[in-house]
């Protein structure tokens, strides 16, 4: 347990000392400030755009950070041979990979919290009240990031950063469209196509489950049962993906 914690803290430290992350967070903040300008120019739904663009920026920049950090961290350890002295100690490869994952989660949590605080303040100064619908949507964004970074770690456990990045991004995009995928198969009339789309529907993460942005912006109440189910789904999906990552990582030769 201590080894996992040490690796997680070290991963977090590496991310924090990496300047790319700061520029990404900075861009997200600029996007949010830009929404103030847009809001002035919008007719009708005033100040909804601040929340909409704010949540959207936190989401998309969070995904970029999750992918960039996720695909690079394991690869860099192997490429720069920093993994050698670690694995030559009584540390399991599974401990290493899980430590890396928790380190990424910690990084994403801090980064999401920071950007969320900024959005809160922005909305507070604009509306004069704390928006109680935002935290749930923000929390679910974090859960989505947790799933995406697990997928990134999975690919980077056997592939190069470029390919891992492409695959993870593809899965992120398709992950928001899986419902359409299933509908498409069901309506196609072909049994093979239907079986195939159903297979992918269950294999790929259904990321749309974690999207509560519209609910937050339009203040629509969300059933708590739906939230719990989504959390359980995310947990099981992450455990599955990390198990597969560990299995492929265990077999690997570090040449």
């Amino acid at each position, binding site marked *: 347990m*201590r*080894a996992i*914690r*040490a*690796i997680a803290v*070290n991963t977090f*430290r*590496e991310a924090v*000392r*990496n300047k790319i992350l700061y520029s990404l967070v900075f861009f997200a903040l600029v996007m949010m400030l830009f929404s103030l300008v847009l809001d002035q120019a919008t007719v009708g739904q005033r100040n909804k755009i601040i929340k909409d663009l704010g949540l959207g920026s936190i989401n998309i920049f969070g995904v970029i950070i999750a992918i960039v950090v996720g695909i690079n961290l394991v690869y860099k350890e192997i490429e*720069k*041979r*920093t993994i*050698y*002295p*670690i*694995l*030559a*100690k*009584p*540390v*399991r490869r599974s401990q290493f990979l899980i430590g890396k994952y928790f380190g990424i989660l910690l990084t994403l949590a801090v980064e999401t919290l920071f950007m969320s605080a900024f959005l809160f303040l922005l909305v507070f100064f604009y509306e004069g009240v704390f928006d109680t619908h935002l935290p749930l949507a923000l929390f679910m964004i974090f859960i989505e990031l947790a799933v995406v970074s697990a997928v990134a770690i999975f690919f980077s456990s056997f592939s190069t950063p470029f390919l891992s990045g492409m695959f993870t991004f593809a899965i992120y995009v398709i992950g928001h469209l899986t419902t359409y995928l299933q509908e498409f198969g069901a309506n196609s009339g072909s049994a093979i196509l239907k079986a195939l789309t159903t297979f992918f529907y269950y294999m790929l993460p259904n990321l749309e489950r974690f999207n509560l942005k519209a609910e937050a912006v339009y203040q629509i109440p969300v059933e708590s049962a739906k939230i719990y189910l989504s959390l359980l789904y995310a947990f099981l999906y992450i455990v599955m993906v990390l198990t597969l990552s560990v299995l492929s990582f265990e*077999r690997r*030769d*570090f*040449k």
Partner: protein
Amino acid sequence: MTSAIEIKGLSKTFRSEFLQKEKKVLSNLNLSVESGTIFGFLGPNGAGKTTTIKLLTGLIHPTSGTAFIFGKSIREIVSREKMGFLPERPYFYEYLTGLEFLNFCGELFGLSRSSRDKKIDELLELVDLKGSEKMQMRQYSKGMLQRIGLAQALFNDPELVIMDEPMSGLDPVGRKEVRDIILHLKDEGKTVFFSTHILSDAELICDEVAILIGGTLRNQGKLEDFLNPKVKSIEVCLRGVSKEQLSQIKPMLSSMTFHDERILVCLDREERLEKLLAWVAQEKAQVISITPRKETLEDLFLEEYKVGVKA
């Protein structure tokens, strides 16, 4: 008594990613390293030294065969509890300071803060990095990286220390420091297993050596059994004699080289030295130096290498 390392029929074949072409890097290696010794693992580049070390440290998996560290199979994680490892040309997290890195290593071993602090203090003293521990490792020189690498390898007080090319890339001072640390480890009763192609370093400190060529073990044994202790040849440097004078005693000499007014002659038998010196006195020439040459590891290595290449 169990050996520190026991390698049994270890083989490794790498497959290239696209064509699945196989390359045998190590074939049927059998080796045993007694505990408490300094063991030199010698071989030219590409002989399979690093592959063997990576197999022992669990970084790659054997194609066949197995090995034991103090009786524990390398497939099990417990085999690494009494082991320390210094990789070749070590490279560590450049964004960490030396102190943070050593602290991280201590955490990997599950040590408490107070025992980590105590150990770090001790190690910094041993590898002479006191005063540089708060620098980020990106600012470290090659020699400093090697020394912090040694410190991390010794964190768990290992019974066995495995080092991959610990002297390569270091200047003479750095090499002497590494040699001193290795000897210090031996004094503490530890086993040191290191690979090198710098033969003079191995000759200075090793109790036993093994020579690996082309993935096959060519020779293993104690250095004194290996090397003929007899004088192989004698080199004498002379001044004040001409070519013509020397031609009188030509049959006695195995070679001669002219260097301005100095002449280097080589004798292949010890008893000829006396005759030569008598002749030099008679010709009123001067002797500048006499150097007896014993068989060195290098001679042996080159011999094995020639045989290995032919085979």
